[in-house]
């Protein structure tokens, strides 16, 4: 009797400690969740913070007198003359009008270096398109140099170093006040390919490259994945070969993506002699990589079609293949589509295997076919992120935002499809 009471006593006395432990354990769990959520939040906040300026471009709008004598150019349609002409001279002259005191050669150089490298080619292109504009005065919006852009956008950000001289900074301040230097939406980002200069670089080339690559991936992996899933679920006999295939699929799903790059390099490029850095090879490699994902999710979708449907179809005389083609596949299609879209979203963000098959080349042109050199969005981000020029960091984060937007809309589409089309049996 006394023994029992003392046991109850022990339990009662330990309760406080045990409840404290309980609370502590709960707290650990909450802490873990908040760490994970905080990292996610920090990641997004950091990228938006670094990248939102990537959507803004800095321009210098000038009234440029396209004086033929100043440019040494009489006939803009003549290619030989154009190659000798100095398109920078009228731009600098018009900048000088704002600063009449700056007329030494070094001042002129300093003024000229406020403009991006491509300012001269903007003027040239304008004259090629409209030769009559020679000797007239035009208001032209020109890209500012990266250094000016950094100064205007990030003057008070310690992460950036201002590379303008004191005098240039005063000039830029004055021009900003006059409204000559202005910031606006960066349409260049969505209308150009890569460039050596941040002000002239865009993601359009990479987006087109990604689209072409994804198209190849989709065309191969979707039908093949569904066919494989149908075979394994509906036709495969219970034997060693089937087991072997299943083991292979499960293992492939866990093979590191870079290994698929090695496969692409050795087989598609080495053995078949396909060209490097083209969307076809990239798409093939990514298709092989996403196949296991699509097969696994399609099998789940096929499994969820109730056997009563198969039995009913067989009961009215349909052959096995007719049951599959007329009933099982249409009913499993929403699930298959969802799985495939998620697989495609993964493939869209994949970088490592594409590095090995040469899709990291510096490519300025927008790719125009499955066999033209291209890069893809994540690789473009990688290239910009590893560039030393300051302007590319914000472009990389802007590129990340574009990439994430694409991926999230794909995932949202998958969720919507599932909600909309999936049937509960």
């Amino acid at each position, binding site marked *: 009797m006394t023994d029992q009471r003392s046991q109850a006593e022990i339990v009662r006395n330990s309760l406080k400690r*045990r409840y404290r*432990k*309980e609370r502590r354990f*709960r707290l650990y*769990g*909450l*802490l*873990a*969740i908040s760490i*994970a*959520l905080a*990292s*996610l939040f920090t990641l997004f906040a950091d*990228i938006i913070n*670094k990248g939102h300026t990537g959507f803004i471009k800095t321009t210098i709008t000038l009234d440029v007198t396209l004086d033929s004598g100043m440019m040494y150019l009489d006939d803009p349609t003549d290619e030989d003359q154009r190659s000798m002409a100095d398109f920078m001279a009228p731009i600098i002259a018009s900048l000088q009008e704002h600063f009449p005191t700056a007329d030494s050669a070094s001042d002129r150089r300093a003024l000229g270096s406020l403009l991006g490298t491509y300012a001269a080619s903007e003027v040239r292109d304008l004259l090629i398109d409209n030769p009559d504009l020679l000797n007239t005065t035009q208001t032209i919006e020109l890209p500012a140099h990266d250094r000016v852009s950094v100064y205007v956008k990030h003057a008070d950000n310690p992460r950036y170093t201002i590379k303008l001289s004191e005098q240039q900074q005063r000039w830029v301040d004055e021009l900003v006040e006059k409204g000559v230097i202005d910031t606006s939406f960066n349409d260049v980002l969505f209308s150009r390919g890569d460039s050596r200069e941040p002000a002239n670089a865009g993601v359009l080339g990479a987006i087109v490259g990604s689209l072409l690559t994804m198209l190849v991936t989709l065309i191969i992996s979707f039908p*093949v*994945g569904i*066919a*494989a899933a149908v*075979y394994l679920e509906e*036709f*495969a006999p219970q034997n060693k070969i089937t087991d*072997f*295939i299943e083991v*292979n*699929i*499960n*293992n492939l799903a*866990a*093979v*590191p993506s*870079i*290994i*698929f790059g*090695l*496969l692409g390099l*050795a*087989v598609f490029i*080495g053995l*078949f*002699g396909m060209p490097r850095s083209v969307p076809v090879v990239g798409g093939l490699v990514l298709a092989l990589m996403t*196949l296991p994902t699509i*097969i696994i999710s399609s099998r789940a979708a096929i499994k969820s079609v109730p056997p009563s449907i198969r039995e009913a179809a067989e009961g009215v005389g349909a052959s*096995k*293949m007719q049951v599959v083609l007329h009933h099982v596949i249409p009913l499993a299609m929403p699930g298959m589509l969802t799985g495939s879209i998620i697989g495609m*979203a993964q493939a869209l*963000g*994949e*970088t*490592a295997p594409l*590095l*090995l098959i040469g899709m*990291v080349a510096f490519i300025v042109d927008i790719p125009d*076919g*499955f066999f033209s050199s291209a890069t893809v969005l994540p*690789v473009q*981000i990688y290239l910009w*992120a590893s560039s030393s020029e300051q302007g590319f960091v914000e472009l990389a984060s802007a590129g*990340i935002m574009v990439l*994430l937007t694409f991926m999230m809309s794909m995932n949202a589409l998958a969720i919507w499809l599932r909600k909309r089309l999936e049937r509960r049996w």
Partner: protein
Amino acid sequence: MQTANLLPLVLVLTLVAYGLAYMRSRAVAAPLGGIRNLKALPFYYAARAALWCAIPALIVLAVWSGFEGKVIQSIVIASLPQDTWPDSPGQASLILSQISNVAAGNLNPDFVPDHIAGAASLLETTESRSENFKAILVVLIAVLGATFAWTRVAPHINARKNVETTLRRIFFVCAALAVLTTAGIVFSVILETLRFFDRVPITEFLFSTSWSPQTALRADQVGSEGAFGVIPLFTGTLLISAIALLVAVPVGLLSAIYLSEYASKRMRSTIKPILELLAGIPTVVYGFFAALTVAPFIRDLAEMVGLEASSQSALAAGLVMGIMIVPFVSSLSDDVINAVPQNMRDGSLALGATQSETMKKVIFPAALPGIIGGILLAASRAIGETMIVVMAAGLAANLTANPLESVTTVTVQIATLLVGDQEFDSAKTLSAFALGMLLFIVTLLLNVVALKIVRKYREQYD
């Protein structure tokens, strides 16, 4: 004709074959009194004609396009005068690129030796001849196949059976593609690895402690042999993966426990998808975050406490990689925790244990094999992860256990050795394949063991 144009052509031929066979089957059926006197529906006769038309033609097209380039190259090389034959694959590719540049008109034929110019014109004629032959052959086979199927449109032949068997075989081939992919990986990696071990003994590769393949660029350089000891790479990989797991396992496991045992249904259904979001973010984004935000932050932090940290510290890469695999660990542990039967939980609670005691003393031990399986899968993920380490870890192969120093990993070396132009037969390039093989074997072993554990455990409760 280009392959890109041939494909639509074959498609059109297939459609034509389909249509003709369809009409013929109806025409055959009409005098007999309608299609019910046929052994199969007209659709099946038509589909069989389409299959006969498309499949042989496409196979020929694929095989021809696959080997065309290589065959033409060897023809061109063989046409060169004996004394100019290349004596190494590197030289061969140099000569070939010169020849193809002349043929493409990028290089003036007057500027190159006569035999190159001759080879260039040979290349041009062979290429166009090959294109023509290919087009003729493919169209011929397509037409022949369709004609054969057309002659076999007869009431007593069951076309449905033929079509279904063919479709079944196609489905089988699609499923077997996974095996083919694995075989492709294994063979491509093994072949190059064996060539690598011809140059560098396998014992040196596995047991030497220094890695500097870049010095093997020029033959006349001091130390031109390069050093191919994989140990520093492996320790670097292990260091970064260990840091990643140190982050991911507690965070992932504890959040899975909280979500499955404590959280309300609403909290669970909002938090879980948000955590899954972490798994959907591309690795290049994590790499960017690690290299440009976390690494400088850690360096500054270390400086503040008086430590010296590299700007490409293993810690930064490991931490971010850990965050990346948190959802992986948490969803796998969530599955196994939920698989523990409810009556074990109820029994423990009924005896007066608190929820955390139930968790720690009953559910966790029961779920442990599954959790370990999940952790092994996460480890194989971490070891094979490339972009984060390429962007945030270093290139120098330091043999160190200090997380503030810079280390390099197997995947980083594969990527850096193979990015850009490379010749296929230098020890430097081949070493990347040897590393790939090592990576493949290690991750495969981890996966096989993990899947076995998970499966065995599941059977216990099902």
